[in-house]
C-alpha cells in the first residue's frame, strides 16, 4: 500500500469558452513513484497538471495534497508551489530572463533561501543538467533542447517533492532524452515523485512505474505499464500504439513456449536478451 502524495477527487473543469477540459476525473499519485500520464493532444493533460499546483481551481471536486484538501489560501498555495514543480512544454513560456543564471535563480530566491545555499544549489543543478557551460550565454541564442534543459534546471533547483513535466523530451534528440530520463531517475531515487506526460510510448513503457491514460478529460485506464499497454481496447480508444518491446514479446509468446520467461521485458536490452536466450535453447 503506497502513501498518496497527491489526489484528485471527481474534479471537473471547463474553460471560459465552454470547452470541458476535465470531466469527473479522479486519480491518486503514490509517493516516490515514477508516474506517466499518456493521452493524445488535447486530452487534458496540461489542464490537469495546472490543477495540481493550484493555478487552475476545479469547478467541482477537490484536490488533496498529502491528504489535506486544498483551500487555495495564500500560505497554502505557497507551500504547494514550493513542493510541486512544473516544467512546461514550451520553454519559451517559462524562461523570462535573457540570462540563464538569473532564470534558474528565480525559484530559489522566491523560496527565501540564503544566497550561499542558492548559489551552491544552482551550480550543482546546472552541472547535473549540462547547462553550466551555458551560464554566460543569452537565452535567445540557445537551441530548443538547451532551453528545455535550462527550464528543467529551473525547477529541479527548487528541490520540489513532486516534479511534474509536460512532455519533457518532446523536441530533444535521443542522447539528451536519455540523459534527462536518467537525471529524473536519480532524483526519483532520492525520494522525489516524478509525474510526466509524453507521446513517446516506448520511452514511457520502459520508464514508468504506473501509467494513467487520459482521454477527452477522463481517466480511461490506469495500472502497471505492461497491463495498460496490452489492453487493445484502451490503446485504440486513446489513439495509442503498443510499445514495440511489448509487441515483439507478445509475438514471441504466441509462437514459442517461453512461458517460463514470466518477467515481461521493459527495455530494449531485456527483449534482446530474451531473443538471444531463445537462440541458444533452439540450438
Amino acid at each position: 500500500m503506497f502513501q498518496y502524495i497527491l489526489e484528485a477527487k471527481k474534479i471537473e473543469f471547463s474553460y471560459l469558452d465552454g470547452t470541458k477540459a476535465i470531466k469527473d476525473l479522479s486519480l491518486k499519485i503514490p509517493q516516490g513513484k515514477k508516474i506517466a500520464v499518456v493521452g493524445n493532444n488535447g486530452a487534458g493533460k496540461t489542464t490537469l497538471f495546472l490543477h495540481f499546483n493550484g493555478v487552475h481551481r476545479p469547478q467541482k471536486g477537490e484536490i488533496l495534497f498529502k491528504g489535506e484538501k486544498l483551500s487555495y489560501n495564500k500560505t497554502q498555495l505557497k507551500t504547494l508551489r514550493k513542493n510541486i514543480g512544473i516544467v512546461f512544454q514550451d520553454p519559451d513560456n517559462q524562461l523570462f530572463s535573457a540570462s540563464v543564471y538569473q532564470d534558474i535563480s528565480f525559484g530559489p530566491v522566491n523560496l527565501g533561501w540564503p544566497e550561499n545555499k542558492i548559489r551552491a544549489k544552482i551550480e550543482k543543478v546546472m552541472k547535473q543538467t549540462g547547462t553550466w557551460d551555458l551560464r554566460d550565454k543569452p537565452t535567445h541564442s540557445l537551441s530548443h533542447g538547451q532551453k528545455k534543459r535550462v527550464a528543467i534546471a529551473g525547477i529541479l533547483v527548487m528541490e520540489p517533492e513532486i516534479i511534474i513535466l509536460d512532455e519533457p523530451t518532446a523536441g530533444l534528440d535521443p542522447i539528451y532524452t536519455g540523459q534527462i530520463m536518467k537525471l529524473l531517475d536519480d532524483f526519483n531515487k532520492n525520494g522525489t515523485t516524478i509525474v510526466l506526460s509524453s507521446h513517446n510510448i516506448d520511452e514511457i513503457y520502459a520508464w514508468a512505474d504506473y501509467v494513467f491514460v487520459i482521454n477527452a478529460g477522463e481517466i480511461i485506464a490506469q495500472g502497471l505499464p505492461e497491463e495498460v499497454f496490452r489492453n487493445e481496447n484502451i490503446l485504440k480508444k486513446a489513439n495509442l500504439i503498443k510499445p514495440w518491446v511489448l509487441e515483439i514479446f507478445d509475438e514471441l509468446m504466441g509462437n514459442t513456449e517461453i512461458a517460463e520467461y514470466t518477467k515481461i521485458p521493459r527495455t530494449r536490452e531485456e527483449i534482446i536478451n530474451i531473443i538471444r536466450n531463445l537462440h541458444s535453447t533452439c540450438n
Partner: protein
Amino acid sequence: MLYVDEFVYTNKLRNSHPLERFIFAFVTLIIGILTNNPLINLIIVTIMLSFLIYWAKIPSFVVVRLMLIPMGFLVLGVVTIAISISFSPNDMLAYIPVGTYYLGITFKSLNLAISTMLRALSSISCLYFLALTTPMIELIYVLEILKMPNIVTELMILVYRFIFIFIETAFNIYTAQSSRWGYCNFKRSIYSLGILFANLWGKAFLKSKALFISLLSRGYENKLQVLNPKYRFSKVYIITFGIIDLLLIIMAFI
C-alpha cells in the same frame, strides 16, 4: 540590432565586473562633454574605438558601421552651425552672395562646428564602448547596484527577453507566409502583413498569459527577484581605466 547583440556576448572585455566599464564610459563621457579642447575629444574617440577593436575584439567593420549611423544627423546639424549669414563678406573664408546678404563660413563658426562634431563623436564612442562590451543583462545589473527602482529593472528584464521572442515569432510567421507565396505581389504583401500583425498580437497575449502561469508555478509574488552570477573586479581593468581618465582630466582641465 540582433546581429550586433551576438558580438556583445562574445566580446573579450566581458569577463570582469560590468560596473568598471560603466563608470569608465560615464566618466570619459563627462570629460568629453565638459572639455573645450577638441584634441581631447579626438583622443577619446581614438581610445574608445581602439579598445573596442583591439581589446574587446569586435570586428572593425561592425564598429565603423555603427559609427556611421549617427553621421548623417551629425553632419546636417554641424553644417547649419558652420554656415552663417552676414551683411559683409569681410571675415568669411568662403561665401555665396544671396541678394544683399552673404551666406558663408567664418573662422569662428568653422571652429565651433568642428568642436561640436568632435564632442558629439566622443560621446557616441563612449556610449558604444558601453553598449558593445556590456550585455543588456549586465547593464540592468549595474542599474540595480545604482538603486534604480525595481519596477524599471524588472520591466527591462522582461522587455529585453521578449523582444527576441517577438522577432522570432514574427520571422517564423513571415517565413511560413512567404513559402506559400504570401508576398508574391504588392496586394498580397499588404494582406499577408496584416495577418502577420494580427497574429502577433494574439500570440503575444497568449505568451504573456503562459509566462504568468509558469512564474506563478515557481512562486512568483509580484516581485521578479533573481540572483546574478558573481562578477569579479579586475585590478588590470580598474588601473587601466583609472590612469586613462586621470590623464584625460589632467590634459583637459589643468
